[in-house]
């Protein structure tokens, strides 16, 4: 195996020690792909607005085999406390990338196996398409492989990933999750990524939604304040299937939620919605590629950003309509509210269309809080801080309302309310 020289491969050198020791054809292939292309710099179009500098300078080791049970339990309790129906849900808990059975509660409706046992990588997430997926393939420690049988409504499942880092980033974990919904199955998957301190979390989730099946996938990024979290989701949706996703970016130093959704047969639907509420020097990136590969499909996307302090929000959304995908209906909307003079939004909504009988549109807006609306509220005696808060909430409310699962929606609102205090820090 070739070694990776630090000067040539940039941030990839942080993983060189771990990459040297990988075994197995798939993993070695991934290492070879990484050696070819390295980890993306900002010269790579898909990473134009997001730099991996935040990964730091020190080598990142594998997570330790044991963890601080008290600390993990505290994070779990904290998440459960945010919304009262959560405690009653079945849950899978991972700490520093490894399954923690003692914290998990299983459900009968969902068949679960673990990556550590099966070493199954799945097919949707090909390592050579995305260097971070290759990195995950090379280093994946564990992950949950969830399957719902045909026609079963499995209700909701909480997939909680806890990262317990120190002051400086010393380790990384690369969970490899998979979700398979057979024909007509239903599941609401609540992925909560929570933690403390510094670490690098690089999950890959490989999703297959069968004929007429419906997956609701809500991801909350509530990572440690110095953590880097770069998640990639691949979702393949079959005929009349629905993949309804929502991502909330709140805590972490650098967050990226990347969704590749493919509408593979007619009358499938995909929603890729999201909200980013960032402050201080946070960078949050929502990137998506929605591929219409069959006729008569629908895709909808609404992403809203509220940016404060020196935060930078990134939105890259591409809708690709293949020649076969006639009668496509695609809509994409990205809006940003800048609360501070130093906040920044970079947006790139993109349409790539090869079929003529389609209706596709996108929109993007950027602006500050409306002075007239503020004046209206203040003239009715609402103090300024409260008026601002009301307007921010109103801005986000419409998007949050898109989350169909009530518990998940309430959880997102609760987490945003906790973050609400940041508004004053500008």
């Amino acid at each position, binding site marked *: 195996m070739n070694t990776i020289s630090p000067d040539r491969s940039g941030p990839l050198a942080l993983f060189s020690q771990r990459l040297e020791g990988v075994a197995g054809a798939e993993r070695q292939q991934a290492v070879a792909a990484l050696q070819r292309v390295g980890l993306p710099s900002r010269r790579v179009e898909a990473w134009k607005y997001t730099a991996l500098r935040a990964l730091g300078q020190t080598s990142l080791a594998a997570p330790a085999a044991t963890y601080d049970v008290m600390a993990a339990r505290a994070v779990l309790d904290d998440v459960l406390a945010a919304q009262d129906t959560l405690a009653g849900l079945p849950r899978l808990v991972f700490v520093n990338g490894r399954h923690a059975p003692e914290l998990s509660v299983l459900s009968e409706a969902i068949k679960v196996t673990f990556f550590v046992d099966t070493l199954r990588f799945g097919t949707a997430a090909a390592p050579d398409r995305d260097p971070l997926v290759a990195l995950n393939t090379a280093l994946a420690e564990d992950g949950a492989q969830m399957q719902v049988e045909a026609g079963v409504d499995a209700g909701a499942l909480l997939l909680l990933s806890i990262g317990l880092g120190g002051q400086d980033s010393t380790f990384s974990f690369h969970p490899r999750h998979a979700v398979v919904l057979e024909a007509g199955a239903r599941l609401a998957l609540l992925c909560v990524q929570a933690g403390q301190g510094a670490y690098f979390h690089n999950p890959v989730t490989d999703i297959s939604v069968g004929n007429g099946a419906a997956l609701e996938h809500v991801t909350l990024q509530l990572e440690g304040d110095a953590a880097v979290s770069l998640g990639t989701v691949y979702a393949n949706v079959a005929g009349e299937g629905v993949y309804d996703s929502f991502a909330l970016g709140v805590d972490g130093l650098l967050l990226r939620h990347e969704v590749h959704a493919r509408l593979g047969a007619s009358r499938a639907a995909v929603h890729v919605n999201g909200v980013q509420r960032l402050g201080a020097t946070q960078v949050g990136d929502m990137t998506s590629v929605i591929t219409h590969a069959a006729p008569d499909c629908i895709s909808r996307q609404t992403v809203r950003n509220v940016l404060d302090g020196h935060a930078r929000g990134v939105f890259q959304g591409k809708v690709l309509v293949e020649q076969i995908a006639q009668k496509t209906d695609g809509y994409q909307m990205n809006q940003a509210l800048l609360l501070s003079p130093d906040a*920044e939004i970079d947006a790139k*909504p993109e*349409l790539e269309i*090869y079929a*003529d*009988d389609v209706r*596709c549109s996108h929109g993007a*807006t950027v*602006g*500050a809080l409306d002075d007239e609306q503020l004046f209206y509220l203040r003239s009715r005696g609402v103090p300024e801080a409260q008026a601002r808060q009301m307007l921010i909430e109103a801005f986000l409310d419409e998007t949050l309302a898109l989350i169909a699962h009530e518990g998940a929606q309430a959880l997102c609102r609760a987490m945003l309310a906790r973050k609400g205090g940041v508004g004053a820090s500008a």
Partner: protein
Amino acid sequence: MPVATETKEAVEKLGQSTYKWGFETDIEMDLAPKGLNEDIIRLISSRKEEPGWMLEWRLAAFRTWQSMEDPKWAKVSYPPIDYQDIHYYAAPRSKAGPKSLDEVDPALLKTYEKLGIPLHEQALLAGVEPGEGERLPVAVDAVFDSVSVATTFRKTLAEAGVIFCPISEAIREHPDLVRRYLGSVVPAGDNFYSALNSAVFTDGSFVYVPKGVRCPMELSTYFRINARNTGQFERTLIVVEEGASVSYLEGCTAPMRDENQLHAAVVELVAMDDASIKYSTVQNWYPGDEEGRGGIYNFVTKRGACRGARSKISWTQVETGSAITWKYPSCILQGEGSVGEFYSVAVTNNCQQADTGTKMIHLGRNTRSTIIAKTISAGRSDSTYRGLVRVQPKASGARNFTQCDSLLIGDKCGAHTVPYIECRNMAARVEHEATTSKISEDQLFYCRQRGLSEEDAVGLIVNGFCRDVLKELPMEFAVEAQKLLQISLEGSVG
């Protein structure tokens, strides 16, 4: 339905030939040997009788160019270009530059007649429809391959204080002005093609409008590539002083050829306080045949700097030609309250590829920009709108509105929209909207029901689709552009 009738007539007149500008003029040419090196640049510079500083500038650009790679990010594909297989200088052979129209080779004037350019001053008003009353004439600078062959109405313009001449002449006659502004908007090293252009540009137009002068007539340039294997690298520089204004039209054609020809122009605009520049282009370079053979590679850098407060630069373009278009007319909105506009219609048919759009860089306070881009794809073509709106931290009160609409005709073409929005100021407002659709069955049915043929109906609907842009064009151009749209889309329906 006057528009439809008009376009129909235009098409009928054309008969079978889809590209009526595809003739070649047989005149004596003065050609530099193929290839690019410092000697060629010295040759160009000496042919142009340029001062030493200009040669140095060119050589510096050439050295920069050698260290650069051609850009690969645009959504166009073409085989690698052999830059050593091009003539970088081609000029109609004549005596030391024409002093008046009489000295211009009559074969050349015929060419322009065929193009329908009103080069003869007395013929200028011929194209004006009756009943419209007094119309201002248009001053024309005609560029044939590498050199400017004729500039009209120079006396009238000189009386108003406006300088309108070939840039090679401006380098000799007005060196201070040229030296001050050349490369100040598009530096030589800005990109691969601007570096190439800076090294080898052979001609183009220079316009200087002094303080407070409203240019008494529209200025126009017609570019034509004629000789085989030549590259055309023209350079246009327009400087408009405080309170002055000018409207400038640009038209382009080339003969039909099997091989591809390279066109890499640079256009620089400078607008001072309260100045305004309107730059309109109807680009109809030879697009290649139905199988995608031949055609012009149009790799152009156009940029305007709104340096002064309340200055305004408006780009209007109708792009129907070229095998490949790579073009992003931009505005740098520096002056407080300055305004940038971009109105574009891009039509691709057969195997054409177009990657075009604009950049609006908001630097100053209360700067405003509007982008209206209409893209029409037919046949097996690909068309991309690529735009950047950037609001820098000091641009408080900046405002942008962008609208991109794409129309697809047939299921073998592609239409793409890639806007970049970068906002670093909370007191700015940026709005972007884009749609992609086909011609609606309802609209087609409505037109057909009233007796229009399918082709006419499509022409009518397309003209309606482009109306927001076409209405920004000066009158003569608007008519021509409408016809062009119809011709470009010929055979794409049914």
